């Protein structure tokens, strides 16, 4: 309380009254303040009560508010993954049951009827597993990645297609990076073939509409939208790429700078600098700390026109025109792509397609389970098989389009180890070298030893070498497989037969006979998609078909599925545990923050009560002194 200094000669009546009034008012105001603190329980009721501490209080409150979302997210993630755990427990039990059934029915003492009735049980297991794969949690399909609005596993054409996504969803659970809270269904049920077609870099050309954000950049670091220097020796301009969106914007900015006669243009997958002034020295350099010129591949000092930049490696996007592929050369020749899943064959023709997206749409809608997409690095197109239980072959439809795109499933570079669902091609054993014999139409016999062949090209070479003048081997120009053509000119049949009990010809898909001049081999290396459904369907077929070999094979598959599911369940359990411990940590952190906040904004009752009592005493003293002082007057004594 401020006290007016007393150094005054006289004290007037109003002064006495005024002082009493103001000291009573001040004490009452202070009492009111303490009373507020006591009744609200808060020391700071408005930020202006204590701006410094209020700042901290507001920030702490914001931290607590933010953690409300974190806590909710942790709860949601825990219940989501617990639901997954539940599903995985059921799935494990079902696969165990299937495995037991397989072992029980593999023996020679089991009759076809018994196997048929076991098949009915497997059918039911399959249906239940499919239901688990398509189970929902809170209206979202649990195993559909980011496509949770539709069932991820769809029965089609005797197989099961995965139409979900492997992309897991992530959210924030603390102030660091987002982490995933959904599972990748592929790691549980399987979904896409392990073999991926698409080995070719498609190298799209720069177009006026190519966005800078879609360039991998000359150094592979994208394109930094900063500034660089352009000079002709006498004039130097700083070209600022801030706000530039497309390759054409870069060209426009260089041209607008009018440095001597220097102009820029687009060519193929790179920028070109040129000059209208003969002998002009073009110098492009980055400013300190900048990488724009390097990213654009045009760092140069040259007077030899045109100055050709390095490739800026434009990425393949949905918007990339097909005509811009291969640095603008496009796809050469007609034809298209033939896709087959064993029962259905579809041909994708390039006619009428303009962009990569159009092509992907056509392939994805071909109805054979093929899934075409742009690869992760944006350098080309991948095709995978999304259907379990159905093979996928991708070949030419009369041209070389599939080869150019690098998506041919049966190509010269195909490894023999990829044949027969990864079981490879068996060769003659027991010290024998001849794997199969080809009988040409003129009756001559060609013994073929594929020797140490590792690729299809090796096999074709071996056949062509052994059968010189009699028979030639090549890849099918439409569809897939090896084609044997008789050149002996005889009138007999063209026959391929196994030698030395070898399975080589069968494994290559070329055993058989034909009265014609060409023997079209079967595709024994289609893309197969492993997974729970594929194995259950194999088991079902094997039981129905009374095939012990099939049952054994399917049982092995189910065993590996089981291992995968158990691993996935373990990983999922660890994730649940980690979310739970994060939730516990968060509670601890909240306690600490709340106590800090309370220290700042909450009333210290001991202190406040003491102050309250103290102020009451002061107020009483005020009243008493005032009443005494005002009562006494000199007049009382002047009688």
């Amino acid at each position: 309380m401020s006290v007016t200094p007393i150094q005054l000669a006289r004290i007037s009546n109003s002064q006495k009254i005024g002082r009493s009034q103001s000291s009573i008012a001040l004490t009452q105001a202070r009492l009111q303040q303490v009373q507020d603190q006591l009744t609200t329980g808060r020391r700071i009721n408005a930020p202006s009560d204590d701006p410094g501490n209020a700042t901290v209080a507001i920030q702490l409150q914001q931290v607590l508010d933010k953690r409300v979302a974190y806590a909710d997210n942790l709860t949601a993630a825990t219940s989501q993954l617990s639901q997954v755990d539940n599903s995985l427990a059921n799935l494990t039990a079902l696969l165990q049951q299937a495995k037991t059934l397989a072992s029980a029915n593999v023996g020679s003492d089991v009759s076809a009827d018994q196997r048929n009735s076991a098949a009915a049980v497997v059918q039911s297991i399959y249906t239940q597993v499919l239901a688990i794969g398509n189970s929902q949690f809170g209206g979202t399909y649990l195993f559909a990645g980011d496509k949770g609005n539709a069932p991820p596993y769809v029965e089609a054409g005797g197989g099961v297609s995965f139409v979900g996504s492997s992309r897991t969803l992530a959210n924030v659970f603390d102030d660091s990076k987002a982490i995933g809270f959904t599972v990748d269904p592929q790691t549980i049920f399987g979904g896409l073939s392990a073999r991926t077609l698409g080995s070719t870099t498609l190298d799209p050309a720069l177009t006026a509409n190519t966005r800078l954000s879609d360039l991998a950049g000359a150094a592979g670091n994208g394109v930094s939208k900063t500034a660089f220097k352009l000079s002709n020796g006498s004039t130097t301009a700083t070209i600022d790429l801030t706000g530039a969106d497309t390759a054409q914007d870069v060209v426009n900015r260089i041209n607008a700078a009018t440095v001597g006669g220097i102009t820029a243009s687009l060519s193929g997958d790179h920028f070109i600098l040129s000059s209208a002034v003969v002998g002009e020295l073009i110098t492009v350099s980055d400013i300190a700390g900048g990488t724009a010129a390097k990213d654009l591949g045009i760092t140069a000092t040259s007077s030899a026109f045109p100055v050709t930049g390095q490739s800026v490696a434009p990425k393949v996007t949905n918007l990339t025109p097909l005509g811009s592929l291969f640095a603008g050369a496009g796809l050469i020749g007609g034809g298209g792509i033939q896709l087959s899943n064993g029962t259905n064959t579809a041909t994708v023709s390039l006619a009428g397609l303009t962009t990569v997206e159009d092509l992907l749409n056509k392939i994805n809608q071909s109805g054979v389970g093929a899934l075409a997409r742009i690869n992760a690095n944006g350098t080309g197109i991948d095709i995978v098989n999304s259907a379990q239980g159905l093979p996928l072959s991708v070949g030419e439809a009369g041209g070389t389009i599939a080869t150019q795109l690098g998506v041919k499933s049966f190509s010269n570079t195909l490894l023999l180890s990829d044949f027969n669902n990864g079981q490879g091609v068996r060769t003659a054993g027991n010290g024998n070298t001849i794997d199969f014999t080809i009988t040409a139409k003129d009756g001559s016999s060609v013994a073929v030893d594929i020797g140490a062949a590792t690729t299809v090209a090796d096999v074709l070479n071996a056949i062509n070498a052994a059968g010189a003048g009699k028979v030639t081997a090549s890849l099918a120009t439409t569809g897939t497989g090896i084609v044997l053509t008789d050149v002996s000119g005889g009138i007999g049949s063209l026959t391929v037969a196994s030698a030395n009990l070898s399975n080589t010809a069968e494994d290559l898909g070329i055993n058989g006979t034909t009265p014609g001049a060409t023997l079209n081999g079967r595709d024994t290396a289609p893309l197969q998609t492993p997974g729970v459904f594929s194995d259950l369907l194999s088991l079902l077929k094997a039981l129905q078909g009374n095939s012990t070999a099939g049952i054994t094979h399917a049982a092995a598959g189910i065993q590996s599925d089981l291992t995968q599911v158990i691993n996935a369940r373990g990983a999922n359990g660890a994730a649940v545990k980690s979310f739970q411990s994060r939730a516990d940590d968060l509670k601890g952190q909240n306690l600490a923050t709340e106590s800090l906040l309370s220290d700042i904004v909450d009333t210290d009752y001991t202190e406040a009560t003491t102050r309250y009592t103290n102020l009451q005493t002061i107020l009483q003293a005020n009243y008493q002194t005032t009443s005494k002082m005002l009562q006494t007057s000199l007049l009382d004594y002047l009688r």
Partner: protein
Amino acid sequence: MSLFGSLNIGRNALAVQQGALQITSNNIANAGNTDYTRQSGRIVSAGDQRGGNGFLSGGGVDLIGINRNIDNALQGRLRSAVSDNNAAGTAQQWLGQVESVFNALGSTGLDGQLSAFFNSWSKLANAPQDAGQRQVVLTSGQGLARSFNSVSSQLDGIQTSLDQNLSGVSGDATRLAQQVADLNKQISVTEGGGNGQANNLRDQRDAALKQLSQLVNISTTEDKGQVNVFIGSQPLVLGSANRGLSVQQTIVNGVSQASLAFQDDGGPVPATGGQLGGLLAVRQAVSDVQGQVDGLAGNLIFELNKIHSSGQGLVGFSSTSSTNVVADPTAALDTAGAGLAFKPTNGSFVVQVTNKSTGQVTSTLVKVNLSGTGAPTTLNSLAGDLNGVSGLSAAVVNGKLTISGASPDVTFSFSQDSSGALAALGVNSFFTGTDASTVGVNAALTGNPQLLAASANGSAGDNTSAVTIAALNTKPLASLQGLTLRGKYNSTIINLASNTAIAKTEAAAADNVQQTLEAQRESLSGVSTDEESINLVQQQKAYQAAAQLVSTVNQMLETILAMLK
């Protein structure tokens, strides 16, 4: 030296004591009047008289005037302390009101709403398809918008009250100034004839000046009994002339601004103290806060819409219309002619057209050319470009862009907008409006929550856009000079709190100064009844003594006269 001389002295002494008694009684009567200045008589011994014997003898006593016990310099200091105190008190009172608008430490204020809003997006990311959580996002968005609207309208209300107060107080100040001018005239007339001061008129004038100093900072000079009043260096009252104050409303950038002016020539009034000074300072402070809140809302709207407009909902649009009107559809979108509150930049966006029956998606790049080279993108050209996309039809209707699927089988969505044009136009936007008073949630979303864009890759179950929006809460923004939205809010609140706290401290300090000066003034000019009682006794005794003197002289005269019988 005669008996009659003594009688005369006695008579004078009686008259002087009566006069002194009158002064004392006037003082006692005004003991409770704080405007009153204690008066005291100037009593002197009367001049010498030469008696018959040639000696000079005293002539008794004389009352030659009545003094006001006043220190004019102290009065001036007191007035300036009163001005300071009133300015700080006014600021404290009003800023406290502004502070309470935000309820910054409560859970229901703007801050709590911001938290709830961003949390709802974070929770949506857990289940992006969940209809209930979508509704929660929309509801909390509306809550936040209403909070902004309410803060804005309450601040507007405070501005209106401030303006009303300003004109009321300036009217009072004009009346008081008139009173001073009138009193100047009266004092001049009253004092003009004889000697002595018109003490009570002067008291009235001092009271008027003190009241005036409560309203505005004044300084005074006295010239021949008349007081000239100045505000800063500008005269308000010169002699008996009053210039008067008035409030002028001007519109600056669409915002009404009040300022003080002199009535006679409309010149600006440099009011920095008193209630007027306080009100003007608060008005400026409230304007600043309004600007900051509008800036916060504007940044939230544009930054969030930029993310939202590049995202996709559970379903595509079958038709949509932009929410922001373009004044001139033939003007480049980033120019003043287009009249957009948020300016798009050079860039492009992708529009995806989905055939509902086949599920086939066709993407098309739409360029927004604001690079300065080539024909710039206008609303008309943008509509033309969109119209050229297979499956879409687009048109400009009343300055708004309307886009619709060419057939019922077609839906469309947007992505990868690097230009901000969609957000600037209000296509596929979350918030509508441009500032705190106009912000709202896009009615298209409340009508169909499935259009809420939680996805950024086109998959309905994706949550990328929701996660990005939730992170906007704490993302440093270039448009806020590297501050986050919450940082901006915090700095606004803390600024306001500091100003309010400073006003409180200043008010307490100014009050202290005023009390000290008032004590000094009271000490000099205030009436003490004790002192007056003593005076009273003294005067009574002096009167009795003088009366006794007259009586004694009378007896002596009678003795002389008896000798003559």
